[in-house]
C-alpha cells in the first residue's frame, strides 16, 4: 500500500440547483492522483470536467463527498487556509485565460507571489523568470489586450507556474490556441512533468491527451474509463 496520495476524492457529487431543475454535474466521482502524475481528462461537453477541476482547484466545493489534498481534508480547512492552498500548492490555468485587465503581464504574474508574501525584488525576479520561461521576456510590459490569444495563455501559464506549485491544473489550456502555440504549451508541460510536478489537463484534443501518461474519461458526471496510456 503506497503512502497517502497527493490528491484523493471520494464519491464526490456536485448538484446545481434543487428539485426538478437540479443539474447533476458530478454523480459520484472517486479519483486518486499520485505526486508526479501527468493526467489528461476527456469527455463530451457538459460531462462535468470543469466542475471536477474547479473542485480540485479549491475554487468550488462538492455537494457531497470528500476531498483530501496532500493529507488534509479540504472541507475542514478555514477560508484563509484554502486561500493558502490555492496560492501555494496549486497553479490553475483557465480556459479563458482570466488575466486581470489593464494590468501588465509582469504585474499579472507577480500577483500570486504578492499573495504569497514575497518581497518586491524577489517577486520581480521570479515573475520575470517565469515569463522568460514561456518565451515572453520581451512582452512583460504589455497589457492583456495588447497580447495575442497564445501570448495571453502563456502569461496565464507563467502566472500559474510563478509560485512553483506542485500541482498544475489546466482547463483546456490549448482550446484557443493554434497548432504551433499548442505545441509550445505542451512542450512546457512535458518539461514540468519531467521536473516532477503533478499535471492534470482537461482537453478535447487527442494529440494533447496523448502527451499525458494517464487518461481519465468523464461522461455524464461519472468517470467511465481510467487507464495508464504510456
Amino acid at each position, binding site marked *: 500500500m503506497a503512502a497517502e496520495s497527493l490528491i484523493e476524492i471520494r464519491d464526490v457529487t456536485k448538484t446545481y440547483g434543487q428539485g426538478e431543475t437540479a443539474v447533476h454535474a458530478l454523480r459520484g466521482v472517486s479519483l486518486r492522483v499520485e505526486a508526479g502524475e501527468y493526467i489528461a481528462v476527456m469527455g463530451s461537453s457538459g460531462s462535468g470536467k470543469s466542475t471536477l477541476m474547479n473542485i480540485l482547484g479549491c475554487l468550488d466545493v462538492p455537494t457531497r463527498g470528500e476531498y483530501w489534498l496532500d493529507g488534509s481534508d479540504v472541507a475542514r480547512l478555514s477560508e484563509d487556509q484554502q486561500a493558502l492552498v490555492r496560492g501555494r500548492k496549486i497553479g490553475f490555468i483557465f480556459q479563458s485565460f*482570466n488575466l486581470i485587465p489593464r494590468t501588465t503581464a509582469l504585474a499579472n504574474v507577480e500577483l500570486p507571489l*504578492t499573495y504569497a508574501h514575497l518581497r518586491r525584488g524577489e517577486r520581480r525576479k521570479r515573475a520575470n523568470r517565469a515569463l522568460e520561461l514561456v518565451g515572453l521576456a520581451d512582452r512583460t510590459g504589455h497589457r492583456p489586450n495588447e497580447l495575442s490569444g497564445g501570448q495571453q495563455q502563456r502569461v496565464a501559464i507563467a502566472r500559474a507556474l510563478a509560485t512553483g506549485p506542485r500541482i498544475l491544473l489546466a482547463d483546456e489550456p490549448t482550446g484557443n490556441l493554434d497548432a504551433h502555440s499548442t505545441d509550445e504549451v505542451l512542450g512546457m508541460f512535458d518539461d514540468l512533468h519531467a521536473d516532477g510536478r503533478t499535471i492534470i489537463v482537461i482537453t478535447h484534443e487527442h494529440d494533447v491527451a496523448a502527451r499525458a501518461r494517464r487518461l481519465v474519461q468523464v461522461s455524464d458526471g461519472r468517470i467511465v474509463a481510467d487507464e495508464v496510456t504510456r
Partner: protein
Amino acid sequence: MSPRDLMGAALRGLTANKLRSLLTVLGVSIGVGAVIVLVAVGNGSGKAVQARLEAMGTNLLTVSTTGGGGGFQRGQAGPAAQQYSLTLDDSAALADKQLAPDVSAVAPVMTSSGATATNGDTSYTVNQVIGTTPEYMTATNTPVGTGASFTQQDVDTSQRVILLGQTTATELFTRPASAVGQTIKLGAVDFVVRGVLASKDSTGFNDPNATAIVPISTLRATQAGYGALSQIVVQAVDKDRVDTAQSEVTQLLTARHKVPATETSPFRITNSAQILQTSQDTAATFTALLATVAAISLVVGGIGVTNIMLVTVTERTREIGIRKALGARRRTILGQFLIEATLLSLIGGAVGVGAALIVTRFQLAGVQPVLVPSSIGLALGVSAAVGLFFGSMPAHRAAGLRPIDALRHE
C-alpha cells in the same frame, strides 16, 4: 500582502477609472469644504456681531418707555402713557451723581425720521435725525471723524449745528470731509455742518451711517416739537456695574413717575451685555444650522462613495475571482477595496480642506469667515470614517464571494 502592495493595488484600481474617481472625490470634497466654510461663516458672523456690539460699549443701557403699565385699562392708556413718558428732567435726574452713583454719562435722545437734507441742488432723505447732547457721542461710541462735535453750550443755546453720518455726508457732498463748515438745509431750516461722524459697521438691517445728529434743543425747536423723549442713553461707570446702574435707573424712574408697586415697570431698559449674549446665542444657533446643512452634503458625498464602490465591486467581480483563485485572502480583498474607498474620501477631504482654506479668505455674503480649526479635523475625520463605513459594505460583499462564483460573474 504588504500595506504598500495594498496601497498600490488600490491606487491602480482608482486610476483605472479616472473620471469616475474624480467625480466621487468631488462629491466628498464639496461636503468637507461646505462643512468648513459654512462653520467658518457662522463663526465669522458671530464674531463680527460681537465685535460691533463690543465697540458699541458693553456698559451701555438704553431706557425707553412702553407707554403704559400692564395693569391699565384701555381708556386710561392715554394719560398713563403721558404720565410715564421720558422727559429731559428724567435725563437730568439720572445724571445726578447723588441719585445714581453708578451712572457716568446720560444722554437724552429724540429722533425724527424722514427729514430731507438739502445741499444746493442735492437732496437726501436722512433715515434718522437724532437730537441729543454731546454725551451721546461718548456713551454710544460714536466718534466724530472729521470736524468736531457740538458742545453743551450749543445745546443750551439751540444752535443750528449738525453732525452728518458718513452716508448722509457722502450723498450731499460726495467727499464727506468737504462737508465740514458748509451750510445745509434740514427741512426748511439752515444748519452748519460741524463734523462728520466716523463710519460705523452695521449691526442690523439699517445703515447706521444714514444719520444726522443735532442738539436736542434744536431738534425740538425745529423738527420734532416738544414731545416725549424717544429714549435715554445711560452709560454705567464700569462694565461690572451695569446691573447696579440698571437698578438705580429703574428705581429712580419708578419714583419720579410714581409708578404703583403693583404694576410692572413701564420702563424698558436694554442692557448691551444682554444684547451681546442674545446675539451670541443667535450666532451659535446659526452656526449649528449651517453645520447641519453642510453635514448633510457630507453624507451625500459618502453615499456617492458607496455607490461608486458598489459599481466598482460589481464591475470587478471577475477580477476578485481571479485574485482569490491566485491565493488572495478575504482580508486582502477587503483591504484593497476599503483602502480604495478611504482614499477616495480622504483625497476628497484634502481637496475640500484646501478649497475651504482658499474660499474662507474672501468675504462671503458680507461676512468674513473665521476658520474653526476643529471643524477641519472633524471634517477630515468624518470623511475618512465615511470612506470606511460606506466602503465596507460593498467591500465585504466582494470579499465574501466564493472564487468560482466570482469567476462566473458576467
